[in-house]
């Protein structure tokens, strides 16, 4: 597909806008056009937060997502708010740590313990956004792995660079090691 529309949703403070920026930066490195729009409430923390990334080999005129191809939900509120709007073909990644989602009875829905993996395997749940990016990209193949690593390096402070690269890897492995358990049937 020439264009991918991605919604990264969760709570304010979970780093979704940064995740969107990293993903877009990586796509840009792959030679794609990108647009990252953010939508958030008046709060700096908590409240619903959403980053929208459009990746396309064409010019991106309308800058917001009209029909998501990929949806990430890192919070219950975000799941409740955004899941109902996606169609059956969309790939959905839900954080299994905190989000209670009913059995949804369709393909392309993945539940992975993203926040828990961040906390347990990287040492801080602050990097759950990057764990999610690693997982999301392993599932959806949005950008090249190399570009994604470069983008993480570029957009994170030197002090936290190694931690974030590790988070990316943790996300990827989460998909590779546990495909059948998490995929809904």
């Amino acid at each position, binding site marked *: 597909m020439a264009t991918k529309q991605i919604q990264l949703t969760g709570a304010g403070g979970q780093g979704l806008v940064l995740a969107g920026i990293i993903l877009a930066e990586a796509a840009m490195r792959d030679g794609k056009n990108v*647009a990252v729009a953010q939508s958030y409430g008046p709060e700096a923390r908590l409240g619903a937060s959403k980053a929208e990334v459009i990746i396309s080999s064409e010019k991106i005129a309308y800058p917001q997502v009209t029909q998501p191809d990929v949806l990430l939900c890192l919070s219950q509120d975000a799941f409740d708010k955004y899941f109902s709007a996606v169609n059956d073909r969309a790939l959905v990644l839900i954080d299994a740590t905190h989000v209670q989602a009913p059995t949804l009875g369709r393909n392309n829905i993945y539940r992975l313990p993203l926040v828990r993996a961040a906390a347990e395997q990287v040492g801080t749940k602050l990097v759950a956004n990057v764990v999610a990016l690693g997982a999301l990209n392993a599932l959806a193949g949005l950008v090249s792995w190399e570009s994604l690593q470069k983008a993480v390096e570029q957009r994170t402070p030197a002090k936290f660079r190694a931690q974030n690269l590790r988070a990316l890897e943790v996300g990827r492995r989460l998909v590779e090691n546990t495909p059948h358990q998490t995929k809904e049937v």
Partner: protein
Amino acid sequence: MREQELVQGNEACARGAIYAGCRFFAGYPITPSSEIMEYLARELPKVGGICLQMEDEIASLSAVIGASWGGAKAMTATSGPGFSLMQENIGYAAITETPCVIVDAQRAGPSTGQPTKASQGDVMQARWGTHGDHPIIVLTASWVREVFEMTVHAFNLSERYRVPVILLLDEVLAHLRENVVLPEPGELDVISRRHPERLENFKPFFDETMVTFGEGGRLMVTGMSHDEFGFPAQGKKAAEQLQRILKKIESRAEELAIYRAHYLDDADAVIVSYGITSRAVEESVRVLRAEGLAVGWLDLKTLWPFPEKLIRSCTEHAQYVLVPELNAGQLVREVERAVGGRVLVEHLGRLDGYLITPEEIAARVYDRVECLKGA
């Protein structure tokens, strides 16, 4: 050749300002424009410039006007509520012919409204917000790179004509990040105010040349109606001076008009749009053209002075004109006025803070064109 970068609209504005030679910024934090001040607070000192966070938006524009009379290219940036507070000083800048740039990243109003949602509700305020007849130039942009270019252009026009220039952005564009290649030094023209050849017998309020404080020009700058020397004037003299500054901009409406025209030659239906809404129009026009509809599109970058003649000539052979904008109907009134009842002009608005979608525009145009065919 510069590389592609992922740049936010607000950052493009700040970088455009520095590129244009802006060396003074004063502002007050407000969503969705604060990133402009944050960027300039970081970057202006590195180029010898000054960025100051003021106590409110009234102070912001006051300091900008003071700095401009000190010789600096100066800018402020805000959103609706702050823009409202600036109105009195916009009038001061207009009557004192002070070059300055005011960026308004529009958000849904009135009042506090929806601070994190986009709007195009300040179009009329940008033109008529301050009291009294006054000259003003209002520009807008739709793309991140265009934000950079129009910021540079805003400075150029402001300095060239000694007039406040307002750049209208909106929440979505202000926060949107896109891959762009920003202009290299020298790629865009950068214009500075003209200085008179001599100080003797110089009239500070007579033409577009300007002397600044500290040069020995014994300037008198006042917001009162004044003569060529800056001293209070009433009656006929006051009227003459006002006519002069009004004409300076209004008489140049067509040369100041920046726009992009698409498929207008054979258009039965014309869409007139500006700012972020133009991006939805671009997609809808592509779809409608693919469907075989003769749809044309006029994408305005200069909103004021309103390019009346341009609108007239672009809609001459059309049967239908649509003006989509994120408000309850503002620029559409000017379009109606220019068209003068010859053609059906419709407004497509949205007030919930979300963008008008390409589908909404395409559906409306499709319906109307079918209707008109049937008639």
